[in-house]
C-alpha cells in the first residue's frame, strides 16, 4: 500500500466518523444544532451524494453525459411510495422495489441510449427522463399527478424485529447505506471492469480495437448508475415520505450534474463534497434569502471557471503535483537501450542501406 492510498483510507474513515459525530449532543447542543441545521439535512446530503455518484460513474468514469438520472431517482421514489401505499410493503421492501423499478427503467432505455454518443447521448437521456416525468404527471389516479403522493414511512425491520425510524436513526441508517455504496463504488472503479470504463472515456475506438465490446460495458455502467440513483431516490422518498413528478424532472437531473461538477467529476469523493456544499449551502442561504438559486448558481459558475476539476479535484491535483516533483525526461535514457533491444534487425537494416 503506497502513501497516497494510506492517506485516502485515513481521509475516508475520518469523513465517516465526522459524519457520525455531527448530530451527537453534548449537553443540549450538537455541532449541527449550533449551525441551525436539522439532522434530516444530512440524510438528504448523503442521498444526493449517492445520486451524484451515479452521474459520476457515467460522466466522470465512462465519459457519458447523463441529463436523465433524476428519472431513475424519481422511479426509485415512486417505486417505494407506490409499493408502500398500495401493497403495504415495509421499509426494506420499499427501498428494494424502488431500486428494482429504477433498474427496470435503465433496462428499457439502455438499449436506445447505447446507439448514440456525445451530445446525442445527453439529449436522449434528457428526452427519456422527460418521458417518465410526463407518465408520473399524467397518471393522476395512480400517482397523484402533479400534486405528488404522500405515503407513511413504514417500520424498519425484519420478520420478528422492527423499529420505528425517527430522523436521527434514519440518518444513521443512511450513513450505513452510504458507506456501503461508497465502498462498492470504490471496488467497481478499481476493478478490471472499472478500468475499462475509464479507458472508454478516453478512447472508445481503441477499446474496441483491443477486442472489447464497449457497448456491453456501457450498458452495465448504465444499469449500475440507474440502480444507484434508484436506491437514492427510494430512500429520499422514505425520508420525506413523498414522491412527486418534479423528482423525475430534468431540473433535478441538472442538480445532480451540478453537484458532481462542484465537487469534481472522476473522483470518488467529488460528488460527496459537492453534495455537502450544495445541500447545506442551499439550506443556509435559503433561510436568508428567497433568491438562493442565484447564489448557488454564482458559486457554480465560479467553480467551473476557477476550479475546472471541481473543488476536491483541484485540491487533490495540487497535492499530487507536490508529491510527484519534477517529471523524468524521456531523454534521460540513453539511445543505447534501444540499440541493444533489437541487435539482429538493426544489423539487417544497416546492411540494406549499404546495398542501396
Amino acid at each position, binding site marked *: 500500500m503506497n502513501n497516497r492510498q494510506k492517506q485516502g483510507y485515513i481521509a475516508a474513515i475520518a469523513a465517516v466518523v465526522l459524519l457520525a459525530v455531527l448530530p451527537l449532543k453534548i449537553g443540549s447542543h450538537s455541532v449541527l444544532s449550533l449551525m441551525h441545521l436539522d439532522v434530516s439535512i444530512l440524510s438528504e446530503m448523503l442521498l444526493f451524494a449517492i445520486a451524484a455518484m451515479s452521474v459520476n460513474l457515467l460522466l466522470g468514469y465512462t465519459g457519458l453525459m447523463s441529463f436523465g438520472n433524476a428519472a431513475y431517482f424519481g422511479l426509485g421514489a415512486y417505486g417505494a411510495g407506490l409499493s408502500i401505499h398500495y401493497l403495504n410493503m415495509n421499509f426494506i421492501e420499499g427501498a428494494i422495489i424502488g431500486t428494482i423499478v429504477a433498474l427496470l427503467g435503465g433496462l428499457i432505455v439502455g438499449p436506445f441510449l447505447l446507439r448514440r454518443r456525445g451530445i446525442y447521448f445527453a439529449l436522449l437521456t434528457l428526452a427519456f427522463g422527460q418521458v417518465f416525468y410526463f407518465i408520473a404527471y399524467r397518471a393522476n389516479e395512480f400517482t397523484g399527478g402533479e400534486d405528488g403522493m404522500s405515503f407513511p414511512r413504514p417500520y424498519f425491520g425484519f420478520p420478528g424485529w422492527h423499529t420505528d425510524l425517527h430522523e436521527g436513526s434514519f440518518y444513521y441508517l443512511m450513513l450505513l447505506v452510504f458507506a456501503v455504496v461508497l465502498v462498492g463504488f470504490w471496488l467497481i472503479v478499481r476493478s*478490471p471492469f472499472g478500468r475499462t470504463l475509464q479507458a472508454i472515456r478516453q478512447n472508445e475506438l481503441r477499446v474496441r480495437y483491443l*477486442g472489447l465490446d464497449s457497448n456491453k460495458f456501457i450498458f452495465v455502467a448504465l444499469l449500475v448508475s440507474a440502480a444507484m440513483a434508484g436506491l437514492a431516490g427510494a430512500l429520499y422518498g422514505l425520508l420525506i415520505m413523498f414522491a412527486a413528478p418534479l423528482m423525475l424532472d430534468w431540473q433535478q437531473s441538472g442538480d445532480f450534474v451540478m453537484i458532481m461538477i462542484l465537487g469534481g467529476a472522476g473522483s470518488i469523493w467529488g460528488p460527496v463534497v459537492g453534495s455537502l456544499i450544495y445541500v447545506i449551502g442551499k439550506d443556509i442561504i435559503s433561510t436568508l434569502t428567497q433568491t438562493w438559486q442565484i447564489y448557488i448558481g454564482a458559486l457554480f459558475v465560479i467553480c467551473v471557471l476557477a476550479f475546472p476539476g471541481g473543488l476536491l479535484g483541484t485540491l487533490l491535483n495540487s497535492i499530487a503535483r507536490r508529491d510527484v516533483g519534477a517529471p523524468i525526461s524521456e531523454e534521460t535514457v540513453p539511445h543505447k537501450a534501444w540499440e541493444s533491444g533489437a541487435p539482429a534487425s538493426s544489423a539487417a537494416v544497416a546492411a540494406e542501406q549499404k546495398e542501396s
Partner: protein
Amino acid sequence: MAEVLLEAKNVSKHFGGVVAVNSVSITIEQGSIYAVIGPNGAGKTTFFNALSGFYMPDGGQVLYKGQDITTMPNWQRVQLGMSRTFQTPSIFPELTVYENLLIGVQSQQKIAFRLRLPSVARKKEIDARIDELLGFVNLVHLKDRPVAELSHGSQRLCEIAMSLSVDPTIVLLDEPMAGLAEAETERIMRVIRDLHDRLDLTVLFVEHNMRVVLALADHITVLDRGAMLAQGTPSEISNSQIVREAYLGQEVLNRV
C-alpha cells in the same frame, strides 16, 4: 505456398459520389510483410479501414482464414487475431504506459469484465506480460508516465505494443512512419522487422514512403485513385514500367 491468412476480394468503398476504393483484391499469406502503397488520396487508408472493420465496404468480401468477416464488428475481428494501429496513435492519453497496456492484456486474458481484482499470481503474470511487451518496443523506462507526455514516436511504439497485447496473428499498421523524424522512422522499421522475425507475426502496413516499403515488404500492392495499379514483389514493383511512369517518377527510384 503458405496458408492464406487475410484476403480481400473486389473490395469497394464510396463516400457519396466519390469512389474511394474501387474493386481492390489482395491475398496475404501467413508470415509475410505486406505493404499497400500509394500517394495521398489513393484510398490506402480507406481500404485499410474496410479490412479492419472501421467501416463496412460497399462491395466485395473480406476473408480471414477463409471465414467471411466482411460485416463482422471490429472488436470481434480483434478477438479472431487481427489488431491494428492508426495514423494518429490511438491511445488512452491520460493513462500511464503501463495502464494503456493493461487494458489490452485484460482483454486478452478475458478478465476485462470482472469486478474483482486479479489474484496475486494473475497480477504477476499480467505484469510480466506488460514488461515483455514494453521490452519489445523499448519503452520499459517510460512505464509509469502518462502517454500524453510521450513523444510522438514513443506514443506510436506504445500503440504498437498495445496492438500486440491482444496476441494477434496479423498486425495492421496504418502509416506507421507518418509524422516521424528520420531516426524514429528507423526505430519503427526495426520494430516492424522484429514483428516478423522475432514474433512470427504477419504484417500488413500502409505507407507512402517507397524506400521504407521496398526495404521491409515482401509483397506490395500499389493503389492510385482508388484502383489497383500493380501488385508483386519489391523487385517487380521497382521494375514495373507502369509504376515508374504513372506514379513514382524515375528520380525516386534512383534514390532507392
